[in-house]
């Protein structure tokens, strides 16, 4: 496998890139042999954000299978970002271009928000953030008519439709493949903090789940969910791991790893995948920058690895964060100290703000501070339920939050 990757690295011409992409596409669609592309090195601190959005009926606020129609309209628009389908036709994925800092992220996500909202309205749909639709029925969802998704439906059965959940992924550029593995291990430790901050899926299949992020529990049903094994300490070790699993037919491409943090070799990034899509894209920009600053900080401590044996602590932290959101307790895997999530996050932000070179980072911190108030996004939604709102109304409130540019304090309207 390593030799194959080295061979691939030597292919610099356009044909080579095309053949890599084709091999990757075949592997992802399950129509070709297992393939792990070479790690494309990128600049540390560059960033990309992907958001999975809900497409809603404007009357019932149930999920509406209108993503293909919205994508047709977005395809006509000149833009630097991309909009793509997801596994079911009520899901829409948007991804930013490569970003340099908070201001750029916030501006582009606002452009995306406005464009997607406009296109959806034109066809009679609404768009919403949030990690899970409060009352959709998984069996009513329709698989997007695309080979990859049909293959997933065959492979995973009902889990494919159950996966109608809406996450946010943050990509942070890594200068080398080995650094991607090392920084990824550090970022994994803090992934529960991002689960807590982004938690916005309190309801599941028409019931109050009792969790702030019900979405986080759905991913666990997939066989390759979890985290990268902690004994993997280099890209070569990861490639060997991939090859071993591929020989068993367990994985065919990097996309078969549903890990909370995984390397994304074709982009030259590590990808943080645990977040619920925030109710407003402005918060997504802020959370993306938080992850970016953490990665830059770790990259400045070359050779340092997290303590071993922290996997059980991670699982516990993850559960707590999904359950109680920003009011959860987080056990620091390095010190063993149990801290309120709010305290851990504020300590991180203070430390990162002191060293950050991103002029927009203070604004990002203010937005994250917003997410810590009133119990976080999930509690903003359940407060409506406590006041007597039904599930339809909960979905409507979330859609209305997405509809307009973000204003401080608008969350409780």
């Amino acid at each position, binding site marked *: 496998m390593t030799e194959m990757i080295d061979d691939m690295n030597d292919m610099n011409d356009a044909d080579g890139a095309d053949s890599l992409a084709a091999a990757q596409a075949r592997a992802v669609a399950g129509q070709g042999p297992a393939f792990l592309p070479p790690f494309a090195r990128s600049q540390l601190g560059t960033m990309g954000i992907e958001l999975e959005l809900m497409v809603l*009926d*404007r*009357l019932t606020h149930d999920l509406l*299978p209108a993503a293909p129609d919205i994508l047709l309209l977005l395809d006509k628009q000149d833009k630097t970002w991309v909009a793509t389908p997801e596994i079911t036709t009520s899901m829409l994925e948007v991804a930013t271009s490569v970003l340099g800092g908070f201001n750029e992220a916030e501006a582009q996500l606002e452009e995306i928000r406005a464009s997607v909202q406009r*296109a959806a309205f034109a066809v009679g*749909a609404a768009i919403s953030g949030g990690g899970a639709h409060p009352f959709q029925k998984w069996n009513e969802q*329709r698989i*997007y008519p695309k080979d990859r998704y049909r293959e997933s439906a065959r492979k995973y059965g009902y889990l494919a439709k159950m996966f109608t959940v809406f996450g946010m992924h943050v990509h942070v550029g890594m200068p080398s493949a080995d650094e991607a593995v090392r920084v990824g291990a550090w970022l994994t430790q803090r992934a529960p903090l991002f689960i807590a901050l982004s938690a916005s899926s309190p309801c599941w299949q028409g019931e109050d789940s009792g969790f702030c992020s019900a979405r986080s529990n759905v991913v666990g049903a997939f066989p390759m969910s979890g985290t990268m094994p902690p004994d993997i300490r280099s890209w070569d070790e990861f490639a060997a791991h991939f090859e071993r699993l591929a020989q068993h037919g367990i994985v065919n491409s990097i996309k078969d790893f549903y890990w909370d943090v995984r390397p994304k070799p074709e982009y030259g990034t590590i990808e943080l995948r645990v977040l619920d899509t925030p109710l407003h894209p402005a918060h997504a920009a802020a959370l993306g920058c938080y992850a970016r600053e953490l990665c830059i900080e770790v990259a400045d401590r070359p050779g340092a690895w997290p303590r071993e044996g922290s996997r059980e602590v991670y699982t516990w932290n993850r559960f707590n964060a999904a359950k109680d959101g920003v009011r959860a307790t987080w056990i620091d895997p390095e010190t063993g100290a149990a801290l309120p999530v709010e305290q851990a996050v504020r300590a991180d932000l203070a430390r990162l703000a002191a060293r950050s070179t991103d002029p927009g980072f203070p604004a990002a911190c203010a937005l994250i501070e917003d997410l810590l108030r009133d119990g976080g996004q999930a509690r903003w939604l359940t407060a409506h339920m406590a006041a007597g*709102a*039904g599930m339809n109304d909960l979905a409507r409130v979330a859609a209305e939050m997405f509809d307009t540019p973000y204003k401080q304090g608008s969350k409780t309207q």
Partner: protein
Amino acid sequence: MNDDSLPLFLFSPLAIIGAGLLLSQVIGVLMQKRGLPRLYGAVVAGLILGVSGLGVVDATLLTYFQELLNAASALVLFEAGRKMDLDWLWRSRAQGASLALGCVLRGGAAFALLAALGMSWSEAAFIASILVAVNPVVFTSMVADNNASGVATYAAANTVGLSQLVALLALSVSLAWLRSHGAVAEPPFADQLMIQGGKLLLGAGIAVACYAVYTVAARVSSAQAGLRPGILLATLMMDLGLCSVTSSSALLSLLLMGLLLRNVEKRDNVFQAQIKTVQDIGYALLFMMSAALVQFRDVLHWQVLLTALLLFGARIALTRLALVPAQAWSTRKKHAIALAACSLVGFSTLVVDSSISNAAYLSATAQGVMQALLALNVLVAPAITWAGLRLAGETSEGNAA
């Protein structure tokens, strides 16, 4: 066999209708197993038991259920109003305008065609007004039957409500004209217009009053969303009752009730939930339409049939033509919307008032055309609507566009 030997239940209109509905369900399920729309069970059962078949169910028998039929029609209109999204119709610009243009083109073309075929202007205007409307029973039932959901379904649902509103307004004018120029001496046009317009205004006033009652009742009781259907039912009954005693337009009234609840009430809106009962009402109404309206002798007259086919086809073509300026839908979706909105209504479906009948004011030719259109509608409109929803890829997984 004399009457004494027949069981009593054979004389019960309710039992006969019940048996008809049972037959509709059985045939519908059998058809569904063969990949055909289940709703056709109601059509086939109507043909078997109705005036074209055994003659067990006919217009006379249906008069026993006039009040029930009126209420059912009004409830279907309520659902049509509830699906009208005024904000979208207005702000989507080209999309909303194209649906409104479709109403105008359907009515205008029907008027021109009927006048060109020699029908009097007043008769042509009267029938053209009716032909503006898309049948909410056929559309809503087919959507519910196929669990259809998507942008074409949404657009067609808005077309149904919008077309009913336009048709009701146009009909009040054309009916006034027809009655003032008919064979029977009646008050002049201006007076007729006041009468017809007055019915609509009264219906609208009752809708607003009942909506206000609903709002106050919901606020006073602080009823949460899940507890409001009872308040809704009571208010709708009040609306229907007030309309029947004042001879006002119950259809417009219920349509407006749906419209108000959809577009004014925002927070904690119980009516965001789907109303599944309308599907069952649709079965019953389609069965009765099939039983009483389809008379093959009307359809088999070639000149009448040709005129009806021409009108039916022109309505679909013009609805499609009106969609050309809209940019948000793909060509496939536009075809689908035009097909899904192909069905038409009869006079009695637009005017719930048993005291008047279109037959009294129409010539034999005009009546023949209308009968043929209605028969054609029952026989083919469900299938075309079904085809439209499938073309849109909005009925089930695997056929998405």
